[in-house]
């Protein structure tokens, strides 16, 4: 069972890694990278490194790659990437250097691990409790340095993403109430339901001397507006 899972995960990891390099469309390249990272998590799981596997998926597939996808989906789209001249020269050079390094490391170990059963499994290995204990005892310095690095990165992100100038002062133009009086009989709710405004203004003496209902609404409105204008001018 574990052999089958190993080969499925290993093949998926290699296919994903090749896909990242080979895909021209950046969106598919990012998806291939996600596939690769999830397959790696499966391999960690087969090695009983449960916490590392979960952290791999949560941090890389779940957080880092989400940002990649986010940016590529917004900015990249279906456009294909053409690398610059410098990259064309440097890329293969670095690839060859890494390949030579890997060969040296592999051959240097004389592949002695292939025929062995590997280290024995100890209960509790790979569990968060064990890893946490190691972090705070044997590897405290590395742990603290890594946390410091993350802290610096977090502060750097905030500094880079902050507003350059800050918000402009509010001169009151945004929330200013527009002081425009609405003429009567232009469709307010009060007019629709009753005739509150017109009545009030008639009662207050603004409306002139006409009887209610004696004139057409438009004329009455004109009369009210005219009287208001006269009052404002006075």
């Amino acid at each position, binding site marked *: 069972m574990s052999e089958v899972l190993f080969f499925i995960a290993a093949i998926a990891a290699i296919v994903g890694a090749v896909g990242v390099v080979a895909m021209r469309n950046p969106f598919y390249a990012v998806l291939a990278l996600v596939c690769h990272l999830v397959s790696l998590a499966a391999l960690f799981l087969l090695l009983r490194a449960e916490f590392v596997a*979960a952290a791999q998926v949560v941090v890389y597939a*779940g957080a880092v790659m*989400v940002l990649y996808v*986010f940016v590529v989906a917004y900015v990249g789209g279906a456009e294909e990437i053409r690398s610059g001249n410098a990259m064309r020269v440097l890329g293969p050079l670095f690839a060859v250097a890494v390949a030579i390094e890997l060969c040296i490391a592999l051959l240097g170990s004389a592949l002695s691990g292939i025929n062995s059963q590997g280290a024995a499994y100890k209960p509790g290995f790979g569990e968060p409790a064990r890893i946490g204990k190691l972090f705070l005892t044997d590897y405290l310095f590395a742990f603290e340095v890594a946390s410091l690095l993350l802290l610096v990165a977090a502060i750097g992100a905030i500094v880079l993403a902050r507003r350059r100038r800050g918000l402009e002062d509010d001169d009151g133009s945004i929330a200013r109430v527009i002081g425009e009086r609405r003429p009567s009989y232009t469709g307010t709710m009060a007019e629709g339901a009753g005739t509150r405004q017109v009545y009030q203004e008639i009662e207050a003496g603004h409306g002139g001397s006409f009887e209610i209902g004696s004139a057409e609404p438009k004329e009455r409105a004109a009369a009210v507006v005219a009287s208001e204008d006269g009052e404002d001018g006075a």
Partner: protein
Amino acid sequence: MSFPIAAVTYFEPWWIQIIKALIIFLIIFGVLPMLTVYERKLLGRFQHRYGPNRVGPFGLLQPMAEIVKFALKEPFRPTTSMGFLFRAAPALSILTAVGGLALIPWGPVTNIFGTNVGLYGIDVSVGPLYVFALGGISFYGILLGGWASGSKYSFLGGMRAAAQLISYEVSQGLALVGVLITAQTLSLVGIVNAQRGMWYFIPQVVGFLIFMVASFAETNRAPFDLVEADAELVGGYFTEYGGTGFVAYLFAEYVNMIVVSGIATTIFLGGWLLPFGIHPPTWVDPFVVLAKMMIFMTLFIWIRATLPRLRYDQLMSFGWKILLPLATLNLLVTAIIVVH
């Protein structure tokens, strides 16, 4: 020749694990349609109407009719969509949602017909991290669905999902850490056992509230359903899906609700434990868990019927400026108390 890889299986025989997986899936699969009816009935009552009441007694067969209707619909897709991803995205959503079901503990290890069986899918040592890992992948189901549809509404819905899920996953995780350091274990079964004295709902009430709010956002439920805001985005990421694809997303959403309810039950409401020293026989335990989960499901529906949708900037500033500092503070205070 055997490979130097540790065995995948734990202490139970493999056939028990397969049977457990089938039983859990089938029970949830049977409960789900009832849940949709329950939600529509409740929503109806909240809005002074009856809800579905025509198909079958009390409208209980409504989901059957819906399923038949959806299954018989013509599978179509927009000409601008990406064929493979368009079909794979809903499947990915279902996969990650169902995977979370394995973690909910329904009861302790029990002797059934002479075999010791743990009444849970798996009891992983990383506990809630497993759920967050699945949650991290479930995001791709939504985002790919939105992106592969080739429509601007779907795309915007998918992008909103991306931002929202990242923002609230942090608070959701931090809210749980308070419980984890109190219980001193990550195993969910261990956390339930640690609540024999008092449910963590009481000492960790701040963490509980933060977790619930973040869970509403993580499951894209109202008032955080901006991902599918129908007033702005037609249907969000599943705008272009009809028939089975749409049902797949609906299914995933409900399973996600069940998983979140199960996790909240386990971590804050004492799982299968009952208060006041009542110790029912073991076969009652799964029903206790189910009943507690129903409380949360009702809460989900209640909130949906009650609260209006947030604005997007409100959602973001609430997540980062209020929820996250609060979760951090809760963690800090809990850590100080535990160490003392």
